[in-house]
């Protein structure tokens, strides 16, 4: 049974590592840092696979671990080297709408995550709610609040 859960976590990691990487990259804008975050998250997920209660939540659980790992990483990074934002360079060619990109980067991590999961990763709100461990209406209203904020920034 334990092996079954580990195997499940393993297959989800192998299937989705590119998504985790892109999400991590959009927080840190550095290849090496993004890889460290994903590797660390993957290690945690493997180490704790046994504590996973329900297999159907494995996917959202791993997402949550990745986001949490990135959050810790950013916290540590900011303490060590000041804000991350100063050394961030928008990777050339990855985003043509620079104005939007900058507005997204100014968002707090949680709001940025919401935008990425909803629009770039095309996750339904119910799944996002599961990932963030919030109820659906909270996620909905936060998404609208974030969109409202972006709209103001961009007008």
């Amino acid at each position, binding site marked *: 049974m334990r*092996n*079954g859960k580990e195997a499940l976590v393993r297959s989800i990691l192998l299937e989705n590592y590119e998504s985790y990487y892109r999400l991590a990259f959009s927080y840190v804008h550095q290849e090496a840092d993004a890889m*460290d975050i994903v590797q660390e998250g993957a290690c945690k997920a493997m180490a704790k696979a046994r*504590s996973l209660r329900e297999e159907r939540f494995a996917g959202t659980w791993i997402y949550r671990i990745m986001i949490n790992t990135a959050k*810790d990483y950013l916290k540590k990074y900011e*303490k060590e080297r000041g804000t991350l934002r100063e050394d961030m360079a928008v990777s050339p060619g990855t985003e043509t709408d620079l104005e939007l990109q900058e507005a997204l980067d100014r968002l707090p991590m949680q709001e940025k995550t919401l935008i990425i999961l909803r629009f770039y990763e095309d996750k339904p709100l119910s799944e996002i709610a599961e990932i963030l461990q919030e109820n659906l209406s909270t996620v909905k209203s936060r998404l609208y609040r974030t*969109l409202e904020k972006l709209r103001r920034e961009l007008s």
Partner: protein
Amino acid sequence: MGNEKNVKNAKDMMVEEQRDFTQLENRIMAGREAYQRIPVPDEMERRIRHVTAGAGRAHGLRIAVAAAAAAAVLVVLPNTGADMAYAMGNLPVVGKLFQAVTFRDYQFESDRFNANVEIPQIVVEDVAGEKPESGAVQSETTGQEKESSDSGKTQEEAPEESKRLQETIEQVNFDIDKVTDQLVEEFKESAELGESYGSLEIHHETVTDNERYFTLKLSIYRGAGSGMESYKLYTIDKHSGLQVQLRDLFREDSGYREILSEEIRDQMRALMAEDEMKAYWVDQTDLPELNWEGLKEDQNFYFDADGNLVFVFDEYEVAPGYMGAQEFTVEKAVFEGMLR
């Protein structure tokens, strides 16, 4: 477009808001393709494969056959030093010299892959003066070992502790071989595939050698990107001739696991309070399931020179990766009363 029409017909705020979000959403969606084109380095896949390697394999499966296979393993070992391991068959346990000897090694080097692996075996030599000339021992005891694994004749003559010790050492040596061989195989596999890069380092160290205990520490470093450190410690009780786990040290009813775990958690809390750069997986509320679950049945440990217990944790076992592997020392005074 349709949106324009919507605006003109709009009577309430909700619809107008919806229109604005639609425009914004479209603008965000335009960046989606660019997002999905963020290049993912090849190294990422390799690192993920590395981290997840071995998942789903039945780790404990071969342990049952370990003892049976041990004899066969001993035969293929080189003769150097092997006499010491076999000589103890008919000698008392006390007064033995325990040593970890590198029996085999594995080296590999290419542009992107390198391995430096030393595979030790524990050998026990008698120091009470009963030992015959070394040349004689080698041939004699090699023969003896073959005999004993065939018929068990020598074992009948040996005192109980000696026999147990011999079995324990065979078992431990077998386990060391099994663990290291698997890692070497995994390394060879990825070197053959030739993707990205990787390294494997295995070294050993005797961390405890007193009248009572002998502990061999195997340090394993598997590199791919930021790498992973792990450890395997083998403690042998020289008195009983048995391998020792935590539960063998403490009285079952003493609640030792919870008490020792909580002691370590307190140390983690103190370290985090002292230095905000330090992080351990304790008291986390975001993802409580990631909190350290406490000492495992087979937790790695050894006794330091002062008789304190040192618990050894793999990287990622109790703290995020940037903290590296961790050790926590629990003072003798904390656990003395719980010992058997």
